[in-house]
């Protein structure tokens, strides 16, 4: 197989995995029903893995394709706006932090998880033109930290154990 074909296949498999994780997340009961759109960010495990293995471009590509597919399969445009803002902010933060190289994958993932939630709430504040949502930022900081830790540990395990050759 040529290198290019291999790469396409690899990205495809990762997208499929991220999509499956999105689905699992969608059918699981919400962690914090009180907060709109709160998501653990399970697909972030794959995004983290890609970011460390293949670099920012692959991570951004899979993240975008996943969101587009999710919104086509089981979402609406509103939800796409939130997840887009959350995912992009979290990706940018993670890419920068990985570059700065002073945190482990767990720390990077925690920062990614928190910024993911903040991005979603800021978008909601803009769209709804209300500042009252600021209350959620506190709750989302906590949930983002906890889920970021779990996802960072999973991502670190993947990065460590999946052979580099694939």
């Amino acid at each position, binding site marked *: 197989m040529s290198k290019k074909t291999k790469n396409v296949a690899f990205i495809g498999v990762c997208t499929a995995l991220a999509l499956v994780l999105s689905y699992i997340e969608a059918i699981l009961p*919400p962690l914090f*029903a*009180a*907060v*709109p*759109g709160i998501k653990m960010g399970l697909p972030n495990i794959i995004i983290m893995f890609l970011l460390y293995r293949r670099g920012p471009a692959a991570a951004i590509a899979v993240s975008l394709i996943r969101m587009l597919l999710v919104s086509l399969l089981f979402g*609406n445009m*509103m939800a796409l706006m*939130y997840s887009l803002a959350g995912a992009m902010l979290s990706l940018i933060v993670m890419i920068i932090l990985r570059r700065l190289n*002073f*945190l*482990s994958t*767990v*720390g990077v993932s*925690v*920062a990614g998880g*928190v910024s993911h939630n903040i991005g979603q709430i800021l978008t*909601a504040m803009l*769209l*709804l*033109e*209300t500042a*009252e*949502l600021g*209350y959620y*930022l*506190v709750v989302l*900081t*906590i949930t*983002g*930290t906890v889920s970021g*830790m779990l996802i960072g540990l999973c991502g670190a395990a993947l990065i460590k154990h999946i052979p580099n050759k694939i």
Partner: protein
Amino acid sequence: MKEKENTVKRYVRNDILLILCLVLIAAIGLFYLYVLRDHGDTVRVTVDGKEYGNYSLSQDITEDIYTGKDGEYHNRLVIKDGTAFMESANCPDGICVEHSRVFRDGESIVCLPHRVVITVVTSGDSNTPDVVI
């Protein structure tokens, strides 16, 4: 080898610092939200950022809020015993209905799909704090 170990140690230390900072920020926020805040007295409803109505928290009411182009979106706001909650709604996620009751100043329930926000506020001069003499 030694150098690698040190790098890992540095990483872990920075990770822990980051997490502690976030926990601290959250703790301060929670303290402010749950300890320092007074009870509000009015529920303000906004749809799409525009004011829809104000309702007193001291009066038990049931208000049906119809939104959307043809009023196809429905949220039922109930005020009972000084607390407000969304009793029912036909939004796809149902998050607003599952939200706990609100009564503290600034607390809100949001229905993102319907763009309905209910917020507890303190009417009148909200800048003067209640002074108990």
